[in-house]
C-alpha cells in the first residue's frame, strides 16, 4: 500500500466519524481533534476504523502520534512496514 493509499484510508476513517467533513479542507499538519472537533468517542471510532481498514492496532499510548493527518500517515506507514 502506498502512502497515498494510506492517506485515503485515513481520510475515509475520518469521514466515517465526521460525515460532514470536507477532505480537501483538512490541513494535513493541523491537530485533528482540535480542527475537526472530535471528542474522545469520535477519536476511538476513528482508531477502530483505522484498524479495520489498515489492520494496524494502535496502542493507547501511541494516540498522540495520530495528532495530524500527516502524522497519521507517517505512523501508519511505519507500522505497516514493521508487520
Amino acid at each position, binding site marked *: 500500500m502506498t502512502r497515498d493509499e494510506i492517506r485515503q484510508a485515513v481520510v475515509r476513517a475520518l469521514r466515517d*466519524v465526521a*460525515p460532514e467533513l*470536507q477532505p480537501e479542507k483538512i490541513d494535513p499538519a493541523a491537530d485533528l481533534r482540535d480542527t475537526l472537533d472530535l471528542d*474522545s*468517542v469520535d477519536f476511538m471510532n476513528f482508531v477502530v476504523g483505522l484498524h479495520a481498514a489498515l489492520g494496524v*492496532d*494502535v496502542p493507547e*499510548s501511541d494516540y498522540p502520534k495520530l495528532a495530524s493527518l500527516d502524522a497519521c500517515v507517517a505512523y501508519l506507514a511505519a507500522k505497516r512496514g514493521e508487520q
Partner: protein
Amino acid sequence: MPSLGADMEKGTLVEWRVRPGDRVARGDIVALVETEKGLVEIEIFDSGVVESIAAEPGTTLPVGAVLAIIRSDGEPAIPPAAPAPAPPSPPATAIPHARVSTTEGVVRKPPTAPARVSPLARRIAEQLHVDIATVEGTGANGAITKADVERAAARRGVQPAAPAAAEAPAPDRAAVMRKVIAASMARSKREIPHYYLGTEIDMGRALGWLTDQNARRPVTERLLPAVLLLRAVALAVREVPEMNGFWIDGQFQPGAGVHVGVAISLRQGGLIAPAIHDVDKKNVDQVMRELLDLVKRTRAGVLRSSEVSDATITVTNLGDQGVETVFGVIYPPQVALVGFGRVAERPWAAEGSLAVRPVITASLSADHRASDGHRGARFLAAVDRMLQEPAKL
C-alpha cells in the same frame, strides 16, 4: 406518529421499511421519519403483521396520527376495506398508540416508489439539493448510496465540495433544532426548580484500572472513561431511584428502566441526548460498544425512535472541552442531569497525607419537586463509591 419527546408535535414520514403483509417483531425498524431532531428510525412497539399502511411517504403528520395498522398476534384479521380504527376499541393496534388524530388538512403527495436510500445518502442529497427521486441506485437491490448521490450531483454540476452546500448544511435544519432546544430549555428553567450539587471524585483507581485493561485489549475492545461514568451513574440510580424518571402531571413517575441519555453536541450546531438502554444491566464492554455505535449514528444523522424518546436521566460530559464543572439544565420531563468535567491532576488529601491524584468534578442538577438535596447528595456519593471499585463496574 410516535411522540419522540415531550417537545415533538409532528413528523414527516420519509419511507416505509415494511409492506402490508410483513411480519414484524417488537423493536423492528418499520419506517423512517424526519423530525426536528433529524432522521429517526421508528421501531415497532408490538409484534404482529402489518395489516395496512395509512400514510404515504412525504406526508407530515401530527403526533398520534395513524401511520399503519398492525394486527397483533392472535387478533383476527380485519376486512381489507376496513377504515382506520376508531377509539375506543380499535380492532388492531395503531402505531404507536390507538389515539387517532385527524389528518384532515394534511397535504398528501402522490405515492412514490419506495426506493431504498441510505440515511447518509439522503442527508447528502439534501445538502446538495439533489432530488433523490432522480438518482439511480447502484447499491444492493438498487439502493441509493452516498456515491450515487454524489455522482448525480456531479453530473448536474454541483461538486460535493461546493462550499455553500457542504459547509452550511441546511441552515433551516440547524435553526429548527435551535428552536426545539430553546423551547425545551426555556420550559425547563420556567417549570423545574433546579437544585445543584457538586463533588470532586478521585479517579485514580478507575483510570488505573482502565489503563491496565486497555493495554491488554485490542483496539476494538478498548474502553473510555466515559463508560465507567455512565455505569457508575446507572448503578447509583438503583440506590436513589428518585433521580431516574419523569415529572408528569404534578407527580414523579419512575423510569421503567435505567436509560441513560448521553448528551452529544453536533458539530453543525445543536445538541441531542439519545439513550443507551438498561445501562444498569449491561457490562462495561456492552455499554462501550453501544456508546461508540450511538455516537457514530448520531453523527450520520439517524437515530432510532427508542433512543430519541426513552432517556430517563441524562449525562453530559464536557471534559473534552476542558471545563471543570457542569451546571446542567434538566431535559424535561426528566428530573435529573449529571454533569462531568475534565479529569485533572490535583493535590488530594486523604488519610492524613497529601498526594497528586486525577480528579473529576461530578455535578447533579435535580428537580426539587421530585427529590431533595439530601437524596441528591446520596446519589453523588454513590457515584463516587462506584468509581472506587472499577472492576465491579
